[in-house]
C-alpha cells in the first residue's frame, strides 16, 4: 500500500470513558463498560444489559442550541471529532478545509429520531408528523454534523455496512488519501443504543439473554450465548504520510495495508467455512508486504455470539497455521459490547496499544470454547514489543475487512 497512511489523532466517547486517557486506563485495566440499561425500559425483554454511555455531557462539547436538534449519535460523533482534531493539533482553516475529508461508519446512526418521527406519524397522522426529527434520520447525519461543526469542506461520505461499518470507513478513508484527493481524513465510527435497535436485536434473538444463563459479553468462552449491544463514537485523524510530515504531526502508527472480501450467506447469517474471512486477512498481510509471523497480536471481531467467535477462530487458524497458538488475540467487545461502527474504536485501541506497548485484555473469559482453544487469548494486559497489529472485521451478512496497523 503506497503512499503510507498515518494516524495522528484519536477521540473517544465510550462506555469505558469519554477521553483517550480514561478509555485506555479502563481498557488496559480490564474494566467493563457494560451495565444495566437505564436509558429505556428493558423489563419486557430477556436481556437487560448494554454498553451504555452514562456520563456523557453534550455541554462539554456543544452549546444547547447546537445539540438540541441532534441525535445521540451525532452528539457522540462531534465530541469524538473535536477530541481527535485537538489530539492531532490539526486546526481547520480556510486554507486547508478542502484538504480535509470526513468519512463516518455507522450501522444505524440516528434511529432514535427515525423511530420518533415514525411514531409521531402513527400517532398524529400525516398532518401531525413532526418535521423536527426528519433531517437527522439520514444515516449521513453524524458525518454531516461533524462537517458543519468544524466547517470541513473536503470529501464527505458515510459507509453503512453492518458490523464492519467502522472498518470500511477506515478503508474508504485510506483509498481517498492514496488517490491524492485529500491530505487528511477524520474517520468516525458511531452508533447509538436506543429502544428500537435494542428491540430489533432482541427480537432477532441475537442478544445474550438472562434466563437460566448469565447475561454477559464473553468472547471465545464456552458459555457465551449472544452479544451485548454497546454504543459510542471514536474518531481518528488519518493523514497521508507526507501531509503529516509537512506539518510536523505526532504519529501514533501507520496503516500499512488492508483487504476486504465477501462471503455468500443468507441475510443476517455468518459465514461458516471461513474461506473468505481468511482470504481478507491473507490479502491484508500481502498488501502490507508482511508474513503471518510478523503479526504481534490480533484485535478480534469476536462479540460473544456462538457463530462469529467460532468463525473467527477458524479463520485465524487457516491463515496463521502453526503460529495461530502463539499470536496473542484480544477482543475489546468483551468490555464494551458490540456496535456496528465500532471498528474505529478498535482501531483507536490498537493505536493506543502501539503507543503504550501493551495489549489490552479480553475479560469474562473463564473456559475457552474448544473450537477456539488453539488461540492464545490474552486475559490480562500483556507488556511486550508491539510493531504490527491485525484488526479483523467480520460481519453477519458476509462482509469482511482486515486492516494492518504498524508502529511508525
Amino acid at each position, binding site marked *: 500500500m503506497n503512499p503510507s497512511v498515518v494516524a495522528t489523532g484519536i477521540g473517544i466517547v465510550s462506555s469505558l470513558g469519554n477521553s483517550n486517557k480514561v478509555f485506555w486506563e479502563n481498557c488496559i485495566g480490564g474494566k467493563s463498560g457494560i451495565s444495566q440499561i437505564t436509558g429505556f425500559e428493558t423489563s419486557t425483554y430477556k436481556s437487560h444489559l448494554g454498553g451504555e454511555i452514562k456520563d456523557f455531557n453534550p455541554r462539554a462539547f456543544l452549546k444547547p442550541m447546537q445539540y438540541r436538534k441532534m441525535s445521540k449519535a451525532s452528539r457522540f460523533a462531534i465530541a469524538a471529532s473535536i477530541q481527535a482534531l485537538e489530539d492531532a493539533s490539526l486546526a481547520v482553516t480556510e486554507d486547508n478545509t478542502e484538504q480535509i475529508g470526513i468519512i463516518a461508519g455507522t450501522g444505524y446512526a440516528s434511529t432514535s429520531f427515525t423511530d420518533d418521527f415514525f411514531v409521531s406519524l402513527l400517532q398524529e397522522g400525516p398532518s401531525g408528523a413532526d418535521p423536527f426529527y426528519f433531517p437527522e434520520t439520514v444515516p449521513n447525519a453524524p458525518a*454531516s454534523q461533524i462537517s458543519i461543526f468544524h466547517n470541513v469542506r473536503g470529501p464527505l*461520505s458515510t459507509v453503512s455496512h453492518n458490523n464492519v461499518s467502522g472498518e470500511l470507513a477506515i478503508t474508504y478513508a485510506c483509498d481517498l488519501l492514496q488517490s491524492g484527493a485529500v491530505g487528511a481524513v477524520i474517520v468516525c465510527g458511531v452508533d447509538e443504543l436506543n429502544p428500537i435497535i435494542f428491540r430489533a436485536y432482541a427480537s432477532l434473538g441475537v442478544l445474550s439473554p438472562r434466563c437460566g444463563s448469565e447475561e454477559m459479553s464473553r468472547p471465545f468462552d464456552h458459555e457465551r450465548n449472544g452479544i451485548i449491544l454497546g454504543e459510542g463514537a471514536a474518531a481518528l485523524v488519518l493523514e497521508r504520510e507526507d501531509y503529516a510530515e509537512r506539518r510536523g504531526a505526532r504519529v501514533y502508527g501507520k496503516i500499512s495495508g488492508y483487504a476486504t472480501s465477501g462471503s*455468500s450467506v443468507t441475510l443476517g447469517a455468518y459465514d461458516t467455512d471461513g474461506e473468505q474471512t481468511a482470504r481478507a486477512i491473507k490479502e491484508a498481510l500481502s498488501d502490507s508486504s508482511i508474513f503471518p509471523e510478523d503479526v504481534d497480536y490480533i484485535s478480534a471481531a469476536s462479540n460473544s455470539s456462538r457463530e462469529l467467535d467460532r468463525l473467527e477462530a477458524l479463520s485465524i487458524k487457516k491463515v496463521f497455521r502453526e503460529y495461530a497458538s502463539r499470536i496473542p488475540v484480544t477482543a475489546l467487545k468483551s468490555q464494551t459490547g458490540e456496535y456496528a461502527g465500532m471498528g474505529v474504536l478498535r482501531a483507536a485501541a490498537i493505536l493506543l496499544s502501539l503507543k503504550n506497548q501493551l495489549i489490552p485484555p479480553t475479560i469474562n473469559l473463564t473456559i475457552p470454547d474448544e473450537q477456539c482453544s488453539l488461540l492464545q487469548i490474552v486475559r490480562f494486559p500483556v507488556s511486550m514489543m508491539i510493531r504490527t497489529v491485525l484488526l479483523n472485521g467480520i460481519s453477519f451478512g458476509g462482509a469482511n475487512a482486515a486492516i494492518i496497523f504498524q508502529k511508525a
Partner: protein
Amino acid sequence: MKVTQPNRRVLITGLGAVTALAPNAAGTWNKLISGVCGISAIDLFDTSGYRVRIGAQVTNFKPPLLCVSSRQLRRLSRCDRFGLSATEEAFRDAKINLSAENRERIGICLGGGAGGVLLAEKYRRKIFQGQQAKPSMLLPFATCSTADCIASAYNISGPRSTIATACSSSATAIGYAADIIRQGRADLMVTGGSESLCELTFGGFNAMRLLDNNPCKPFDRGRNGLSLGEGAAILILEESNRALMRKAEVYGELMGYAITGDAHHMTSPAPDGRGAASAMQKALERCNLKPAQVDYINAHGTGTLINDAAETNAIKKVFADHAYKIPVSSVKSMVGHCLGAAGALEAFATVLTVKHSVIPPTISYETSDPECDLDFVPNKARPQSVTYAMSNSFAFGGNNTTLVFRKFEEMR
C-alpha cells in the same frame, strides 16, 4: 490479491434498471428520451391524509426468479428485489458468464437510502398497535442488505461496501467502485443503488413541505418541490483491458469523481452552491478536463426552489460563460427523486446519453426562471453528440458528488 498496474481505466459494460417508467433498462431509456412522466398517484401504502399523494412508483414489477430461492426471496425487501432484478439484467447485458469468472475479483459497492424501511414500518406499525410481528421483517432493514443479498445470490466475493448518504449515496458508490478497480483491488464491480418508497421518506418530505402537488418541474419558475420515486439502477464497471480483450460492448468510460461537503446546513444546500461547485471543480481537475470540454450535465435538479437555484449558481461558478452553452437536464422530472437510487439512475441516463448521442429532456418545463437561466433541454430530447458528461448528486447534510463520463470512441 491486489494487482499493481498504473493507469487502470474503468469502462461501463453492463446496465440494468427498474423505474416507474419500465421494469428494465431499455424500456426506461426509451421513455426517458420520449419525455414520459412516471409520476402519478401512489398506492403502495395509504396516502390519504397527506398533503401530496403522488410519486414515481414502480408498477408491473415481477421479481427475478433466477438467482435466489423463493424462500429467500420472501424475506427480501422491495428495495432488495429491485436491486436484484437490475443486477440480473446488468450481468446479462454485459454478457458475463459468472461460472467462468474468478469471483474473488468481482466486488460490489452500492448506495442505499431507505432500503428495507417499508418492511420495518409494517413491523413497527404492528408493534405500535399491540400486535405480534415477525422479527424477520427487520432483517433487510440495514442499508447494506441489498449489497449483501446481491453478492450472496451471485456468489461474488471481492470488495463489498455500502455508501449511505441519502440522495447522493449511489453516485458516490459508483465513483468509489471505479476507484477500487483503478487501485487493482477488483477487476469488475457491480455498482449503483436501489430504493423503495416508504412512509418514512414520504411522510418526512411531506412534513417538511418539500413535495410538489403536481409532478415536479425542475428549474421551472413554477417549481414547487420534488416528487419522490423508487427503483434501481445497476452498472457493471470493468477494467478496460479486460473488457477490450473479451470484446465487451462498451457504454462509456467512467473517468473519475469527486465528493465534497457543504459544511452549511442539514437540509438546505449552501445558496451560493459552493459545495456543489467544488465537487464539479474537483471532478474536472481529477479528470484533467477544462470546463469548456464538458458537453452535458445531468443535473441533481430536484425541483425544489432552493436546490435548483443553488445548482444553477454552482454550474455558473464553475463554467462561467460556457455554462450557458451546456445542455443541463434533470431526469427526476420523469422518474422522480429516487433518493438512494437517484445517483445511479442518473449515471445510467448519463452513460446512455454518451453512448447514443441523445440528451434526455427536463419535462414539465413551462416557464423560464431568471434564477435558473441555463439550457435545461425543455420537454424534448435532443440528438447531440456528447463526449464528456457530468452527473451531479447532492444530499441532505451537504454531501455532494460529481461523476464524469467519457464517450468510448474517444479514449484511444
